[in-house]
């Protein structure tokens, strides 16, 4: 009985942390996990991106897996192919909730490649 209670406790505490009452509901696009688990990514994605950007720009080491382009490719909405277009878009939703200004997409493409290619052909 006690074992059960303690197990339940251990499982419930992280669950409670993970599902905060007002956490934004995001449109995660295709979703899936390719780099690390979602909780780790929520906390640390900016460090990966900054590391990758310096390596890629300055040294030409292009690790596709952790590139911003690759993030957008999977996490852009399936409806509008964007990570910032709507309130619940993958990047914009969380950044609005946390009140952190995101300026990546002033220069970088915020839409998945397919959408941009289609636009070019029109």
């Amino acid at each position: 009985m006690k074992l059960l209670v303690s197990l339940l406790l251990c499982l419930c505490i992280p669950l409670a942390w993970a599902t905060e009452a007002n956490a934004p509901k995001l449109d995660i696009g295709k979703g899936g996990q390719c780099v690390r688990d979602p909780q780790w990514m929520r906390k640390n994605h900016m460090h990966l991106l900054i590391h990758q950007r310096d390596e890629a720009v300055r040294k030409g080491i292009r690790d596709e897996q952790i590139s911003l382009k690759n993030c957008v490719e999977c996490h852009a909405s399936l409806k509008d192919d964007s990570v910032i277009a709507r309130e619940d878009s993958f990047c914009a939703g969380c950044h609005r909730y946390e009140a952190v200004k995101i300026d990546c997409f002033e220069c970088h493409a915020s839409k998945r490649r397919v959408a941009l290619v289609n636009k070019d052909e029109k």
Partner: protein
Amino acid sequence: MSDHDTQRRQFLKTSLGAAAVAIAPGMLLFDTAHGKTEADSSKVRWGMLIDTAQCKTGCNDCVTACNKENGLSGGTLPTDSQWMRKIDIKDISSGRETSLPMMCQHCEEPPCVDVCPTGASFKRADGIVLVDRHRCIGCRYCMMACPYKARSFVHEPLHDQKPDVPRGKGTVESCTLCVHRVDKGQQPACAQACPNKAILFGNLNDANSEIAQKLRSVASVQIRADMQLNPGIRYQGL
């Protein structure tokens, strides 16, 4: 020790055990992402040899290809970005006319890098001169320093940039020698697009490369060689 204490101790022990079991699978997720590509190396120096005899007056295919590849508007106003432009020159005494493409010459001693106050303008180990727009503050000293007028400033907000070519308002930009294509082992867009194969792209440091062999066998010049910047773009027939 009271029975209560033992029970409490037991409870804490089992809790810790259960916590360890719950966390253990999480630890396995801390696997590092491995980079597959290597850093650019100074054994390579990318360059071009442009045969002006093959470059036709009025042909603009390299410029069009550059604009399409990099998502440029193609406008030619002073406020439009032009990474590459065609120039027609005429020798007044003989009347000989020549046409040639002009862009960033990817100097070995780039003046744009010397003057940049933030270190945004830099030269990669393989000789490609780039602007790191994460550090660029848009002061435009590099545009003034460049003897080839190769750089442009982005004046207006941009939308729908190419995924491989990020560009943005408030930063300086220029020909990147299509670095995103070169890193994939492809040729720059202009070299591929030229109908007369007037642009030969390759590794200047590799004695066996086509470009190095051609540079050995034909006369070529660097533009404004007197400034001793040693540009990576060479011209034949000027």
